[in-house]
């Protein structure tokens, strides 16, 4: 097995504020293989966007390292050599704000092409990029306000690909789009992944999407990784109580999907505020399997099955499926 293309070790990002320290990302390890889609799933406060920003170098971690193809990655984007910066790109969540409303598609795509001194004819490359994302080449002279949400996102993807990256961080790329358009964007993304041998860090809160798109799923809650597993294994055997709560809350469309959701778990409680994290395991106030130790000790992330990690005091010693309440 080749070395992973991207790894994170002991990543922490703490934001000091007047009311205390916000532990946005609290000791996170992760690994991504080349050509893989790593799904990072979480709700608000989970730290998934901050993690993405750290990979991009937008925020330097408070501690911890990220390695790209085995070599340590400088923490700030500014400190990274240009080729390295161009090798990891990002697609943002909101199509409306990710394109400058006063610049045409062509002008937006020129930025990554001019910088870095591309020798090819820039115009040809722009046409190539538009074709790559299934947009007509005539769109080059359009402005964002003339494009639909899905089309704007495709332009954002074209822009991210302009520098021939190996890794693309996708931060909720389809959450702001209608269902009928989401599918198109996802299809383009998956096709390009195979064609251009890309690896994706796919950040989202949509588990149904993850089921069909990612190779591995990583669940985050309040800054910590709660469960990581290969997608099939994950959905066959969701173990962490938070994961089960998340799965049980997903609105689904077919009877078959209803049957797959954990039946005995229901969402309760609020996501704790960042400044008032519960002691021990920060999920314990909402957990129906809570034990005394959970209130005092933060559980370690342990491998409970090959490639399947979970941080919960229930595992791997016991493998209880019934809730205590």
């Amino acid at each position, binding site marked *: 097995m080749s070395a992973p293309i991207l790894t994170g070790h002991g990543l922490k990002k703490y934001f000091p504020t007047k009311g205390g320290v916000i532990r946005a990302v609290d000791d996170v390890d992760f690994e991504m293989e080349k050509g893989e889609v790593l799904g990072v799933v979480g709700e608000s406060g989970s730290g998934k966007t901050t993690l993405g920003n750290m990979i991009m170098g937008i925020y330097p971690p408070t501690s911890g390292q990220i390695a790209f193809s085995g070599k340590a990655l400088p923490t700030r984007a500014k400190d990274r050599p240009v080729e390295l910066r161009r090798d990891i790109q990002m697609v943002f969540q909101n199509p409306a704000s990710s394109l400058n409303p006063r610049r045409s598609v062509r002008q937006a795509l020129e930025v990554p092409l001019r910088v870095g001194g591309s020798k090819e004819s820039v115009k040809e490359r722009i046409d190539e990029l538009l074709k790559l994302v299934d947009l007509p080449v005539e769109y080059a002279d359009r402005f964002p306000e003339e494009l639909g949400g899905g089309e704007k996102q495709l332009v954002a993807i074209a822009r991210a690909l302009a520098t021939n990256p190996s890794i693309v961080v996708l931060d909720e790329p389809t959450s702001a789009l209608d269902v009928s358009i989401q599918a198109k964007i*996802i299809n383009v993304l998956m096709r390009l992944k195979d064609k251009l041998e890309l690896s994706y860090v796919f950040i989202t809160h949509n*588990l149904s999407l993850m089921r069909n*798109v990612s190779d591995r799923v990583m669940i985050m809650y309040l800054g910590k990784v709660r469960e990581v597993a290969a997608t099939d294994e994950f959905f066959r055997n969701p173990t962490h109580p938070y994961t089960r709560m998340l799965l049980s809350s997903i609105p689904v469309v077919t009877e078959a999907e209803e049957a797959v959701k954990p039946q005995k778990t229901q969402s309760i409680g609020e996501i704790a505020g960042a400044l008032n994290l519960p002691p021990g395991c920060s999920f314990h106030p909402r957990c129906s399997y809570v034990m005394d130790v959970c209130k005092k000790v933060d559980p370690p992330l342990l491998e409970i099955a090959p490639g399947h990690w979970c941080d919960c005091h229930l595992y791997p010693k016991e493998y209880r499926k019934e809730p205590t309440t």
Partner: protein
Amino acid sequence: MPLLEVKDLRVEYRVYEGMLKVLNRVSISLEKGEKVGIIGESACGKTTTVKTVMRLLASNAKIAGGEVRYSGEDVLAMSKKKLSDLRRRNMSMIFQDPSAALNPVFTIRQQLYDIIKYSSDTRLSKQETHEKAITYLKQAALPEPDRILDSYPFQLSGGMKQRVNIAMALVSANELLIADEPGTSLDVTIEDQIMRLLKQIVEEKRISVILITHALGTVKNFVDRIYVMYAGTIVEEGPTKEVFNNPQHPYTQMLIKAVPKLTGGGVPEGILGQVPSYLTPPSGCRFITRCPYKMEVCAQVPQMYATGGNQRAACFLFDEAHRPK
């Protein structure tokens, strides 16, 4: 007599470029105690429809035809006083953005008291108002209602704000509650709680509900009947289970297929093409530009045809005269 009847509603908006002919002969009806959902993607006219019912349309909107009857009375021709009474005592609305309905510079107490006093026909003493406020907050499953009353909106989480909105809506929604994407801006686990709470409340109090959303899964477990809207037209209606298990209209079928499934199945196909412009909508069926089954007759406006069971679809495929062999 149905509680609410909307017949052949046509609404247009005046904009710089011309008239946006949004609603195109929309008809919906709602019995007492019934829960009805309107599903559709963005800008399909679902919010315009309910805003017309509550007569909250923007100043550049023009009601070009049709009627709206509440308990038999013509809402569009109603006097301001009668309308005000209706809003005060019979119907209310919850919006998508939990912060939007709450004034950030007043405490919850001030806002809730105002609503209670305004909607009551008799003068209430301070004690009575306070007791009512607590009752409503408790109905919305808010813990520590006294603390909530003293809070400002910014001190509450999204889920709590939405519960406050529900409490406020309950004050005047004795007969009809309109919920416009109530869970869309909330985290999945919180949205699940809010929707379950809402369902429990409306069933207990036998309040009729119109639930608007673009999330198919959310509406499925909530409403008895569904209307599917596309580009300002109702394209399908029927009992929830039947519409989901056996969608008739090509748009509904493609929409359900476009949702990624929790059970797997790969990345779904999207729906190719775009929503037609409201400035120059197709003269006949508005789905004509994207429909794989289009026929010549689709250049005319389709009626709602019975398709078996209690379902109806606005599609010539179900017209005896034009059904393809």
